[in-house]
């Protein structure tokens, strides 16, 4: 499944970059109360609870960050599995200045799902993942506003 979209943040790009590069921050933005631990310079591991229609369960997995061009773009690779299936995804984030105090983030990605989450949840996965992304981006924007508010 392909994921594509964009979001305009109310804050400057360097601060947004710092937030994006801090998975602890990302973790607080995502629904499903994920936990994240750093395991290498660009590698992390963690758990997240996901609910797709009738299917719900915990996923454990790894996140790695590559192709970093600070403070503009990077590639995020996620691999997770749980009792209800597995998820693999690769996404690219690209940020550009959009006037004063505004940053445009474009994201594209490819997600592969398998197991029960695919065979029973597929119909809803698209809208669930879009909802999760929207919610995460909104939360990230709030964090950004709070952090950049004083400037």
């Amino acid at each position, binding site marked *: 499944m392909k994921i594509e979209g964009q979001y305009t943040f109310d804050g400057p790009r360097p601060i947004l970059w710092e937030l994006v590069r801090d998975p602890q921050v990302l973790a607080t933005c995502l629904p499903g109360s994920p936990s994240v631990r750093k395991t290498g310079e660009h590698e992390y591991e963690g758990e997240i609870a996901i609910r797709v229609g009738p299917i719900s369960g915990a996923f454990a997995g790894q996140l790695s960050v590559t192709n970093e061009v600070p403070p503009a773009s990077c590639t995020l690779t996620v691999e997770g*599995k749980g009792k209800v299936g*597995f998820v693999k995804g690769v996404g690219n984030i690209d940020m550009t200045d959009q006037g004063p105090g505004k940053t445009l983030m474009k994201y594209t990605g490819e997600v592969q799902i*398998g*197991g*029960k989450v*695919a*065979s*029973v949840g*597929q*119909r809803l996965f698209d809208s669930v993942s879009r909802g999760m992304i929207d919610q995460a981006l909104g939360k990230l924007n709030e964090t950004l506003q709070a952090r950049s508010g004083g400037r």
Partner: protein
Amino acid sequence: MTKTLIGQRVLRNEDARLLTGLAQFVDDVEIPGLLHAAFLRSDHAHARLVGLDVSAARQRPGVIAVFTAEDMGADWAPGPPLVSPPPTAKDVTFHSRRQVPLVKDKIRHAGEALAVVIAENRYIAEDAVEDILVDLEPLEAVVDLEDAMRPDSPRVHDDLESNLAAHLFQKKGDYDAARQQADLVLRRRILIDRGAAAAMENRGIVADWDEKSQHLTIWDTTQAPIPIRNGTAARLGLSENQVRVIAPFIGGGFGPKMMMFYPEELVIPWAAKKLKRPIKWIEDRRENFYATTQERGQVHDVEIALSKDGRILGLKDIFLHDTGAYDPYGLTIPLNTQCHALGGYDIQNFTTEVSVVFTNKTLVTPVRGAGRPQGIFVIERMLDAAARELGLDPVEIRRRNLIPPTAFPYEHGIIDQAFAPLILDSGNYWPVMEKALEMIGYATFVRDEQPRLRKAGKHVGIGIAPFVESTGVGPYEGARVTVEASGKVFVATGVGTQGQGHFTTFAQVVAEQLGVEVSDVRLVSGDTAEFHWGTGTFASRGAVVAGNAIHAAASIVRRKVLELASKHLETPEDELELEGGRVRVADIPNRSISLAELANLANPLRGAVEPGTEPGLEATAYFGPRYGATAFGVHAMIIEIDPETMMIEIKRYVTVEDCGTVLNPLILEGQIHGGVSLGIGNAYYEKLHYDENGQLLNASFADYLIPSATEMPRIEVGHMETRSPLNELGTKGVGEAGTIPVPALFAQAIENALADRQLEILESPLSPNRLYELTSRKEAG
């Protein structure tokens, strides 16, 4: 014969039990100490299995055992081939790869079993499955048939050079020469995708090993209990007499429940014997979607050559056939497709070539129709295209090509699914078509109603599709018929029953011979302790093969009855008649003796049975046809399409079947109704959606649509009878007749209803959504 029961609408003997919940199904089996099994299945379609850690699962309270392939040790072996391998011939390539009980090294489709947990109940077993840690290395999946055949494709079986499972070339006449003489040559690419059988009852098995009697009893939702008994005995090193397989009432077979030797059928009896405890496994619906076999995926490149008056000069069909991860069922399905691509038509020049392809998808084995709907879809689509090109009426082009009644037996000159010459035994095709035309009012509809309704803005269309169905194949079936001391009759036969009405039709055959009430004939089918010679219920062969074996056994018992009664009544046999459970002297009704008395005379407590005779009024007989009988039929329907939603309303649905002698029209109609329902699903609702990674994306009834009562039309069934010369009763099979032509019929009727859009349909299954896409694409140019 005093009373004709064959052909009567006799109500079903079995319905009282079924309707009051007293019929036994596999899940009804309860045994003290029964354990329950759950399987760990792969989420990935293609992966190398690195390791399984089952230690936590084994420690869970209530878990009795956890088995992996490794734990099976020397008992681990792939399942047996399910049909004879193809003969070694220069035009046949066949690589046999059979399913394994539990994956040892490589996962080849999502849902393949990796381990089994045996626990005190299913809840614990399911929880313990989740305790198992799986270490695997995902591989790129082989999904698309054409991609699978590219040299750089990943391979489903590493030891083969490619994903080619089999290749078979057949020809009759000279297609290329015919093509040279043709006025019209049409080429089309036709795509057919998979559907599920979706029986109401999922699979299930209970195995009970009794250590003291050294005997294994298995209740299995199988259509073929005898092969399962023999194969299980061989695998477990037991005598066949130490194994009893019972196929009780089954909520629908439709092919995937044949003698499959599914992983569960290999593992559960093995585990029961090892643990010396009874074990039950009942499949859940999601397992059914990816662990029960499926069918229909093919890609055809077809060419048809015709004269300008619409005569078919030749047909060439080169196609790919999806067999999934393994091919235990050999070439049965693609051979059926090859044979049925000729339809009921007189085609002198035919070239057909199939490449069977391994993919990382669930195994493909016959599903009601078994390759036949694809063949019929191909030829009927080509004829519709040709009729349009030549400006002929779709009925007329068919009339000009149907095999004439004088041409039977019609030898086609290619081999059929049994690797024997394809011969159509008998038939009278055009009158069947005429009857269907008359029943649906074809002429009036096309001349008056359709123009009137079109003027009123309605998208109404008509379709009419003939088809042949090869049925009643060998090797043989058998039966034992006994008149018991009560005067009632007991019949045992090997074929199992999954709703076909055997308890009634077979009882009618016996009652007709012995002059008893149909309800006084008790039948046991599908229990190897009662009868253990035969193969099973599939390929529309029950009524033909088992029916004629039962007829033969009942005829012998009738002779024994008459012989004994003749002595007792001191009257020649030809002056006796059997009626109402008694043998009477024809002209003197009060000189008679009951079957009960005769049964007791035949089994005396004192005196001596004469040398060279047998006690009892009992006989066992077998029947094996020289080759399969071929049935014929025509389906016709009138539809209206809502052009906004592409929902189809079926206004009229007519079928006319010629399946030889009709044993019971009521039951025949039931078979047709069920078949049409599956056909409508195949044609317009059901499709298994696999993504490019081999994940099945609609493995639940929330997403996989099967027709319900609201989609089912009222079906008008007509009959014609051309007796088969191949058997005493003159029967031909009808089990798959309802399903076979439906996708072809839908395509034709939809094209007709949307004539203003000049749409050509070259794929199946369709759906409202897909039809909308096709018409939009057409409009977009």
